[in-house]
């Protein structure tokens, strides 16, 4: 299957010194769902912006659907769909008017526009609210409208920039169900960025983990988890227990032991059977244990493995969070009047 997206040594430096993306290279096959996973500020949105010709790369090159993103900007915009992380629909227009406008901008034939707009409104459960101003829409409705706008011209490649940010779990599940169905029907390629690990795990065919502007690992979710070497048993000894490390390493089945802040992370194919042995080894050395826990491979663990730290979830509010917050403040003010 040919590649829908190819990035070669793509970099972006802001103000001559801030390197947001640092030489990323990857390819996405046609019809694939490819996820860029990383915390805020990792370089996900900057990469997506370069692939969609919103930003020009500082160095490197990329093609999307065979078009060079630096030299075929107009043709590229015609072929791709883009769903931003914030709401970009015009709040002073109705849902239908926003879609009519998008249809005109993306060159959907005039005679096909009403049918296409109705089809998307029905598909995304917006038909009943189609003639309401978007400023009266809920956060979930706005997200679905963004997707409809991005899909209006049946793009060959759909880019989704943290599309479910600010949605509740039910809203997120519903959103991904629609994307998944549309993708199956149209065969389009989907490139998404997210910092929700469970989303990346459940939705993507392949994932690249990006941190500090660099891809630190990539593969299918199961490949990435397999690279962890099985389960992870975390051992928290009481007091100084330097001798415990070598003892754990010597246990049968243990593939690696890493110590961090007085805690040992022990990798092994089967954690269930290792735990009694861990307890036995500690007891044999006269070392008390504060706790032993077992974690199955997950993308959280993958992230920790490849970046050396926990997934950061403590960043400040994003643009969408601010927009949703602002919209709620405005709604509450209207309610008080």
């Amino acid at each position, binding site marked *: 299957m040919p590649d829908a997206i190819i990035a070669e040594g793509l970099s972006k430096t802001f103000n001559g010194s801030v390197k947001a993306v640092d030489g990323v290279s990857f390819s996405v096959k046609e019809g694939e769902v490819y996820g860029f996973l990383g915390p805020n500020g990792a370089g996900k949105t900057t990469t997506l912006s370069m692939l969609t010709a919103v930003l020009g790369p500082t160095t490197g090159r990329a093609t999307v659907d065979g078009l060079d993103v630096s030299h075929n900007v107009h043709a590229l*915009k015609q072929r791709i769909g883009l769903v931003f992380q914030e*709401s*970009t629909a015009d709040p*002073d227009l109705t849902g239908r008017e926003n879609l009519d406008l998008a249809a005109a*901008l993306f060159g959907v034939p005039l005679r096909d526009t009403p049918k296409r707009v109705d089809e998307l409104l029905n598909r995304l459960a917006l038909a009943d609210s189609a003639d309401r101003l978007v400023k009266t829409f809920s956060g979930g409705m706005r997200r679905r409208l963004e997707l409809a706008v991005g899909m209006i011209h049946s793009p060959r490649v759909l880019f989704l920039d943290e599309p479910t940010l600010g949605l509740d779990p039910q809203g997120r599940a519903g959103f991904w169900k629609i994307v998944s169905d549309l993708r199956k029907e149209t065969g389009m390629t989907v490139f998404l960025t997210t910092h929700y690990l469970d989303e990346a795990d459940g939705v993507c065919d392949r994932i690249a983990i990006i941190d500090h502007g660099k891809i630190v690992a990539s593969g299918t979710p199961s490949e990435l988890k397999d690279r962890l070497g099985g389960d992870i048993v975390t051992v928290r000894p009481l007091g100084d227990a330097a001798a415990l490390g070598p003892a754990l390493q010597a246990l049968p089945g243990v593939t690696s032991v890493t110590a961090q802040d007085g805690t040992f992370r022990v990798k092994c194919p089967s954690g269930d059977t290792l735990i009694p042995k861990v307890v036995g080894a500690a007891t044999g050395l006269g070392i008390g244990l504060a706790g032993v826990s077992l974690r199955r491979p997950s993308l959280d663990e993958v992230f920790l493995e490849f970046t050396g730290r926990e997934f950061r979830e403590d960043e400040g509010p994003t*643009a969408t969070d601010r927009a949703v917050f602002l919209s709620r403040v405005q709604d509450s003010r209207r309610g008080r009047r």
Partner: protein
Amino acid sequence: MNVRRWSALTKRELLKIVRNPAAIATGLLLPVLYLLLFGQGFNFTSFLNSPYLTPVQRTQLLHQYLLGAPDYFSYFAAGMVGFVGVTATLFVGANVIFDKLFGTLKRTAASPATAADIFGARLVAGSIQPVGLAFLVLGLAILLGDVGLAGLHVTAAVTVVGAGEIVAAILLLSLMFASLFLALGFTIEQPQTYFALVNAINLPVLLTSAALYPWGAMPAWLQGIASYNPITLAVEVLRIDLFGGNFYPYAAWVYLLGLIGWALAMFAVATLLTQRALAPKN
């Protein structure tokens, strides 16, 4: 420019104008306040009703100071009708900044629409509105005379050509200022900076024009500056068509040519700045 994209974007801008009557009211506020307060309180030509002046002296003074207008309020009201072309275009640039802040512009810029489509739509929608509002102000200024206040008295026979010249003058002035404010809107990121700059432009442009001052009372240096001021050029067209052109050095079309020059120059600058603002960031 793609006609379908441009017309869809223009429709969007017009819908937003219609759905936001507060912005329309704000565009009218300043000229209407000037008419209701400043114009009424400052209508100094009532002094000309003095019994010590002969009718000939009175006429001479009017010609010298107000270039043929029957009284100061009428002279000044024509100036305020022209000034709508500035005040009603203020929000076209502010809307660009708000569209940037709320992401709407990002969506349009990410589409195949060109900078010309985006700029052209906002320019046309932003320039049509002031023409309608200017005629509202003109009607109000005339009506004031019927309710016991100073009002605008049209003393010339307004022909179809004259009416066309008035529309053209307001439209050209609006195009010029809409271009200027759009250029600011596409270049500036913060609404506070935009409004500070707009105020820094708005008042000096008004105060160096002949919209407020009796021409004969202005010192020569101010007359020199005012002669090239686009508000003056538009207002002179209105005054020629409403009160007659006997006391003006040029015909209305000459002033219109000057306005075309201003509008084209500002359009060129704004187009350049908009293209730069909407190009992919390097």
